[in-house]
């Protein structure tokens, strides 16, 4: 049956077609919909689906399941693999039990990420294969095939969709789901499960041998496809292969084309291409992974062949598209370029529309209060989440990676900064990788204030639950972790809980934390407004009356529901009734109104 599917939904279907029995992930754009779709599609299948606390945990859970004979998958965004790199690198040596597929979704152009690292490099680093789909159909088929490959060679397999695969849609042919194997059992095998030096030395040798065999096996997969034609050729990987193919059709050219969907690419196919052509253009997004392999093959069989790529025709940063591929090919063939269009004058008159915190978002209120209490000379390390969008409020001085707010704050203090330091991170980020940082700050006596912006969800990635919410990925009730208890247990000397919608109390809470001689924690707790709306919480409405003096204090607060007409403020229909602007207005001109 054909369905119009989002890439990530197609991947979930592929995992189910493979009879996977366990999936664990941590939310991260562009990967989050995979676990969410598995929850939707699970039905009565014998399948455990979880949001893990972080990516390292997710991968280790998946590894345990694999060693127990259950096909398993771990899902994450590309930078999540950095967090999971520790188990990942050694797993390659130890090997899997039942098939294990790691889905690491890359984000060329950083649509929603802090960097654009290329997961294929990780695959090379660990000597494991990586599947690089061009579209949702390939992503689904590769997800299923990944388990066979993983089992055949006893290695984990990376599936690396990019944003334009995970978040694209296409008509996809779907197959039947399979039930996971019955009665899995952990079989003891210390030689392959215990990473003692004496065990891993031969396993490294074995891995390197397997890597060669894997490359040979990948020669016959349908995603590595050679079409010989003219004496100029293109070798292109993943979605860039689709762009290159469209470029050839668009320009009506007679070029040879080798499309590659795996890392390593089969050297034999590359060799056949090189023997046929005098010149090749290598088209791939981000790192020259494929190009380097083409160069190596050329060196051994046909050094005179011209190889064009990252140096001259294809950028190494950002994402490619059809036009970039088309123009690279056109330039190679000395044909007319097709410049990207621009509307003259549009930029001049268009107001920027950056993403921003929602109307009524409690983070805005918490940051407002934080800034009031700590002042402009304080240092404000921040973290990864919706709140990073508040960078214009002067309370986001750093954002590096998950959890680095607390640790960077610690270093800023212990490195010698004497100004007040108030760092902030969300509840989900805190549970992901803030715990160790807080413990370290307590242990090493960093006098800082840590603010947990607790909106009881993982908001940025689409509102996934976590251990502080009391629910699992599948909606089952579970333990509800108390952030206050956790912080005290980790050594915080003072823990304050405030409701950011109560501005005065929140400012007072921040001041007490600021004045505390030691490690203080402020938990600013208020539900994310999107969650609150979905759960049907009653909504108030506010309006500005004739007492408005036009001082713009409420406008400067930055809620998108407050507008200024040049004279007076006005509240538009986006208002979610948080009431914070009313507490800011010195003229008491903002009042609750009946709807």
């Amino acid at each position, binding site marked *: 049956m054909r369905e119009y599917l989002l890439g990530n939904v197609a991947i979930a279907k592929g995992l189910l077609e493979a009879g996977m029995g366990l999936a664990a992930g941590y939310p991260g754009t562009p990967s989050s919909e995979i676990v969410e779709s598995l929850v939707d599609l699970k039905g009565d299948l014998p399948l455990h689906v979880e949001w893990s606390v972080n990516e390292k945990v997710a991968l280790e859970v998946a590894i345990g399941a694999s060693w127990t004979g259950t096909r398993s998958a771990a899902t994450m965004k590309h930078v999540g693999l950095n967090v999971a790199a520790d188990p990942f690198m050694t797993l390659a040596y130890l090997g899997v039990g039942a098939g294990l597929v790691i889905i690491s979704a890359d984000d060329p152009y950083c649509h929603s990420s802090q960097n654009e690292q290329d997961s294929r490099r990780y695959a090379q680093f660990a000597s494991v294969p990586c599947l690089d789909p061009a579209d949702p159909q390939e992503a689904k088929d590769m997800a299923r095939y990944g388990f066979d490959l993983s089992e055949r060679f006893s290695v984990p397999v990376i599936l690396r969709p990019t944003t334009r695969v995970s978040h694209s849609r296409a008509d996809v042919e779907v197959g039947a789901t399979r039930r996971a194997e019955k009665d899995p059992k952990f079989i003891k095998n210390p030689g392959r499960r215990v990473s003692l030096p004496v065990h891993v030395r031969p396993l490294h040798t074995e891995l390197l041998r397997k890597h060669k065999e894997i490359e040979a096996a990948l020669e016959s997969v349908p995603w590595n496809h050679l079409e010989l034609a003219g004496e100029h050729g293109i070798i292109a990987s993943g979605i860039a292969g689709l762009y290159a*193919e469209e470029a050839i059709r668009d320009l009506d050219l007679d070029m040879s084309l080798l499309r590659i969907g795996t890392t390593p690419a089969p050297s034999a196919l590359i060799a056949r291409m090189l023997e046929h052509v005098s010149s090749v253009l290598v088209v791939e997004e981000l790192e020259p992974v494929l190009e380097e392999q083409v160069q190596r093959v050329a060196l051994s069989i046909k050094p005179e062949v011209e190889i064009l790529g990252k140096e001259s025709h294809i950028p190494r940063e950002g994402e490619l598209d059809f036009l970039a591929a088309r123009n690279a090919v056109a330039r190679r063939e000395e044909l007319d370029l097709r410049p990207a269009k621009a509307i003259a004058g549009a930029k001049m008159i268009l107001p920027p529309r950056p993403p921003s915190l929602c109307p009524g978002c409690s983070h805005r209120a918490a940051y407002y209060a934080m800034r009031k209490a700590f002042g402009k000379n304080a240092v404000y390390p921040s973290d990864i989440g919706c709140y990073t969008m508040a960078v214009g409020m002067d309370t986001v001085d750093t954002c590096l990676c998950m959890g680095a707010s607390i640790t960077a704050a610690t270093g800023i203090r212990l490195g010698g900064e004497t100004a007040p330091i108030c760092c902030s991170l969300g509840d989900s980020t805190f549970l992901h990788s803030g715990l160790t940082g807080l413990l370290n700050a307590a242990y090493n006596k960093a006098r800082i204030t840590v603010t947990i912006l607790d909106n009881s969800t993982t908001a940025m990635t689409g509102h996934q639950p976590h251990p502080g919410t009391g629910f699992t990925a599948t909606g089952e009730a579970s333990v509800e972790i108390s952030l206050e208890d956790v912080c005290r247990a980790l050594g915080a000397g003072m823990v304050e809980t405030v409701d950011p919608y109560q501005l005065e109390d929140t400012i007072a809470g921040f001041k007490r934390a600021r004045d505390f001689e030691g490690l203080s924690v402020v938990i600013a707790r208020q539900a994310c407004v999107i969650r609150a709306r979905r759960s049907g919480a009653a909504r108030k409405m506010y309006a500005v009356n004739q007492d408005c003096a036009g001082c713009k204090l409420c406008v400067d607060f930055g809620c998108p529901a407050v507008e200024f007409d040049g004279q007076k403020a006005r509240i538009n229909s986006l208002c979610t009734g948080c009431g914070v602007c009313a507490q800011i207005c010195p003229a008491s001109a903002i009042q609750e109104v009946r709807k």
Partner: protein
Amino acid sequence: MKTSECDIVIVGVGGQGVILISDVIGRAAVKAGKPVRGAETHGMAQRGGSVINHTRIGCRYSPMVASGGADVLLALEPAEALRFGHFLSREGTALINTVPVLPVTVTTGTASYPSLQEIMDLLREECGDVRAIEATALARQAGTAQAMNVVMLGALSRFIPLPEELLLEALSEVVPPKYLEANRRAFMLGKAEVE
């Protein structure tokens, strides 16, 4: 060689229902037995930022429409029509909802919002067929302002190679049953606007 039968770019602001429109088109295309590709905006931009959605009917290649290649630009918000106007081909059609959504840069007074006239004039220099649609008002007339996106879908239906009954069938799969009637009315009102 032409690599796509019909290229559509749908733009707006996070939360306006851009994805629903392309979902309906894509499903209808599958029902019609045509290959179809689409690309969406998820993640950070959904928080009140600009969103763009590409849909290519009768296409097996890139999920994104090329700059200057769109047969139709469907804009749920006028400033976004201009922001993404460069996608429009000279022979294409722009369908634009007239009601602005002010970005924070405007509400806080750091930038100003252009007039509808300015927006239309600049777009008309790019392409001959630029049409304003009072989609928000029509949606209210249909019973719910929420259905503004479906009014626009109705207008779009006249410009794409898919039969109306398949679009309506797909629509009934993606909107909750209790809103289906209002949404069908919205679709018809949108269609009538461009006829």
